[in-house]
């Protein structure tokens, strides 16, 4: 093998450039948590603000304040949403591939409470003195979010609400044991502190005409929600002891007594149904939730359903009411129920429930709460309703002219979505009134960073922090007292460490340390997301920096020739 003869003509041509090129570039990506939900602001940013405080030289307190401000910049209700949001952000977290997603919701709640305890004022935008006076109909999450975003930009804002207190469904639809009124009050007060005027007990359309409100304000935002519960369309469904979920919850949340007897059937599978059931249970009744599809299709937050079951509430699935049974005096005695089976998916993507013939049975009951759907109350607003459809706004909430709309009035969803719509509408209106380009709204256009680009080995595995819960056995006795708690500051500080800062620089220093060609230079004033400058003059193109980057911020560019 050592002579030339044995080896004649063995090798193929060695290409001119045999070193594969791995020239790095610093390219920010969208973190998946933000893809999951845009309402917690720059989630990666506010986590990084605290997690990287040692690098940016921020004191703990200072870092927490800045984080709160980043969060409150887009969402004035962090303490509120930290309690009731189903947190779709968490289900997108790349860390789920390693162990558990970050407890973003619990962290949001901590920061929200931190903002309340420290009486942090909501951040104002600087330098604008606007003459316009904008009106908002409905002091729910959507309307207040809009009011906040306009007021902080220097606009005079007046919010009208039909009820005696502000908050909308947050106040009247969510029971106190999930969201104490003091928490909601404190966050609403921060918005009012900016100078927002609140006109309560004023239903636009009846107490004051739409035309009058329109003429008063240069622009109007409608966040009237969907306050009216749909009744039960079955024989016997009208009459005493049958409540809609929204009526029942509104009364409970207003402290009014409701006589529901000892055996309550709640119809529906959403959060209102579960909330109503849990309230009824706290009133001492035996409670059964009747839902026509299976557990998987229930729109309610999964852990709320768990909590309800822990509290002794019975769940009857694949069952639908056929009629309400009453005795000779008209007193409710029970519900005739029919078994269902699941057919092919319907337009909502969920499997359609189909009645099973001959499967009827009767459940005893003293009251029925139907929490099946809610629709907007349009009294006096009919002129805005086109041909029976409720307004269909553009993405920025505009409907043409001077009216914008958002929140449940458009499409029933979670409070977080209503807050987003209020903010987007405000940003769009502000841009229009000031004649400026609409700011970068939601989509940054950056690619999302998937778990395959995250170097999980750069952190040790660890369990996520969990929101502390009152033991199930104590909850009913505790009545309307809150069932969950807020994580401690130490837990919060530990949880932020779990974040990989997917798609941006967390200043881990590995690229800087392992590049022996001096391509990376430390910034004198680093900030979360940017710690180094990059100069490729001496780059050996080995790609090590790219591969050690924990969050996939560095990526290979096209080869240099």
């Amino acid at each position, binding site marked *: 093998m050592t002579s030339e003869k044995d080896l004649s003509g063995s*090798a193929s041509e060695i290409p001119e450039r045999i070193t*594969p090129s791995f020239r790095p570039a610093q390219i920010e990506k969208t973190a998946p948590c933000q893809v999951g939900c845009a309402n917690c602001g720059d989630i990666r940013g506010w986590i990084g603000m605290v997690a990287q405080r040692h690098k940016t030289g921020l004191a703990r307190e200072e870092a927490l304040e800045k984080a709160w401000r980043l969060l409150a910049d887009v969402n004035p209700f962090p303490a509120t949403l930290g309690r009731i949001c189903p947190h779709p952000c968490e289900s997108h977290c790349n860390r789920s591939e390693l162990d558990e997603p970050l407890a973003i919701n619990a962290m949001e709640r901590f920061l929200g409470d931190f903002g309340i305890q420290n009486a942090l004022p909501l951040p104002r935008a600087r330098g604008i003195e606007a003459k316009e006076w904008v009106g908002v109909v409905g002091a729910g999450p959507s309307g207040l979010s809009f009011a906040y975003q306009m007021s902080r930009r220097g606009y005079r804002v007046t919010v009208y609400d039909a009820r005696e207190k502000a908050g909308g469904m947050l106040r009247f639809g969510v029971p106190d044991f999930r969201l104490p009124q003091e928490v909601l009050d404190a966050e609403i007060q921060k918005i009012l502190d900016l100078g927002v005027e609140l006109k309560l007990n004023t239903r636009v359309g009846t107490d004051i005409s739409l035309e009058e409100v329109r003429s008063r304000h240069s622009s109007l935002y409608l966040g009237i929600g969907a306050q009216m519960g749909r009744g039960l369309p079955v024989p016997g469904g009208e009459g005493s002891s049958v409540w809609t979920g929204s009526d029942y919850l509104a009364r409970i949340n207003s402290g009014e007594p409701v006589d529901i007897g000892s055996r309550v059937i709640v119809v529906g599978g959403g959060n209102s149904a579960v909330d109503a059931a849990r309230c009824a249970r706290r009133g001492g009744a035996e409670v059964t939730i009747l839902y026509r599809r299976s557990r998987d299709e229930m729109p309610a937050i999964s852990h709320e359903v768990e909590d309800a079951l822990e509290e002794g509430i019975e769940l009857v699935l694949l069952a639908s009411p056929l009629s309400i049974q009453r005795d000779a005096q008209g007193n409710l005695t029970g519900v005739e129920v029919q078994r269902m089976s699941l057919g092919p998916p319907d337009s909502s993507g969920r499997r359609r429930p189909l009645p099973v013939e001959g499967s009827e049975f009767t459940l005893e009951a003293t009251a029925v709460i139907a929490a099946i759907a809610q629709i907007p109350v349009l009294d006096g607003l009919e002129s805005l309703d086109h041909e029976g459809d409720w307004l269909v706004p553009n993405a920025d909430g505009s409907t043409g002219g001077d009216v914008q709309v958002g929140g449940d009035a458009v499409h029933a969803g979670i409070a977080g979505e209503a807050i987003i719509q209020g903010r987007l509408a405000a940003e769009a209106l502000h841009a229009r009134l000031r004649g400026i380009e609409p700011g970068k709204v939601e989509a940054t256009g950056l690619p999302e960073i998937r778990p395959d680009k995250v170097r999980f080995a750069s952190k040790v595995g660890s369990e996520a922090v969990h929101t502390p819960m009152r033991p199930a056995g104590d909850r009913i006795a505790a009545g309307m007292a809150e069932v969950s708690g807020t994580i401690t500051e130490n837990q919060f500080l530990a949880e932020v460490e779990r974040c990989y800062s997917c798609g941006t620089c967390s200043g*881990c220093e590995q690229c800087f*340390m392992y590049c*022996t060609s001096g391509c990376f230079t430390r910034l004198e004033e680093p900030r979360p997301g940017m710690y180094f400058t990059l100069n490729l003059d001496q780059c050996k193109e*080995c790609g*090590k920096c790219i591969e050690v980057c924990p969050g996939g911020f560095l990526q290979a560019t096209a080869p240099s020739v």
Partner: protein
Amino acid sequence: MSPLTQKSVADSFSDFVESEEKDFTLRDGSRIAVVGGGPAGSFFTYFLLKMAQAIDLDIEVDIFEPRSFKYCGPAGCNHCGGIVSESLVQTLAAEGIVLPRSVVQRGVESYVVHMDVGDVAIESPVHERRIAALYRGNGPREGCDVELESFDNYLQEMVKGLGANIVPQLITGVENHDDRPFLKYGDGKGERYDLVAMAAGVNSNLINMLGELPGDYEPPKTTRGYICEFRSTKEEIMRILGRAVHVFLLDIPRFEFAAIIPKGQFVTVVMVGEDLDQELVHTFLNDPVVRRTFPTGATPCVCSCSPLINLGARKRPYGDRVVMIGDSGITRLYKDGIGAAFRTGKAAATSAIFHGVSAKDFEKHYWPTCRNIVNDNRVGKVMFATNAIMKNSRITRKAMLRMAQKEQQKDQARPHMSTLLWNMFTGSAPYVEMFRGTLHPGFIYNLMLSLGAALVPGKKAVQPRKKVA
């Protein structure tokens, strides 16, 4: 910590007088940080924990290594050609560190020296002195489908089994806080330790960023290497390269040294030189001598690097409660870096456990091991310089070839040139030992003879032995 309350690192590390009055022994509960989880860090930890166990000392060892050696490609690699001498493998076995087959790809039986004047295969001169190939990380970027185990990861798992904690945290500096070394973490935090062993090698900038250190303490001098991986089939690699490491002594401008190492279905090309660039790499790989030694259809893997190679030692690789081991401290010139990591790691651990962790203790009990390496490297430098001169002349190249070829053919009792070349390439023996060999009258006589023969034109060259076809 505000800068005002910190003493400069230099103040404390050089403070020998003060160190006499302090307690510099490790005690129960002492915390030791090892910066870098490569072989030096693992060997040091291995001996530290074993020795502590032997004297019933309860210590805590944290190894700081942010990278995982389980990754394929540069993220999990510690950049070297991956040749260890069989003597090291056996020394490790004698210490209880038995490397499994998946880690060490044994079976390298010879070196083939390629020159423009001809090739010569050098069989291992003494039977035990075989060599083995291994991957430091988990193989090249595209090699994840191949069953091989990372050497560095194997050692790390071993010390983890002994109770060491692996902390995936980058260290960005060492300061002195209240007479204890304080490690600064990449995330901006940090912690104090009773002893810090720096095993960060030379391919991280940490060693250059340690700030002010005592007077004669300086980062090692380095040169660049170039390593790239090619992929072919096992059969083709066996056919062309056999069970041999191929070394090239070629007269290409700026060219210093290169080797081609077969590793299963991969071929590692290693080049060393001050002035390496793409052009030189290309010229080398297209040289006719190299071309005939290259597997057909070998495709470049997307894996190459230009690592730094330790050339000069730190003069004093230690201070109070700080000790440098492996490439961060003293290592052998060009060769056998893992062997040096083993020896320095063991010596530093011995000093720390049985003597103390002051600069004085390390001076007395650690430095002698380092000094031996340093002295040997001086001899090595002379030998490499001589070799460089010899390889640059066609006549001396011919003489070397002739002498080695004759030795290999005759199974001579004293194969001087072969032993010399073998040891120079493998790093199996100290340079001093090799140098002594060159002073042997037999070596000089045979070299003169070969030189004379090389000067006579037209004389028939000795046919090289055909060993592996």
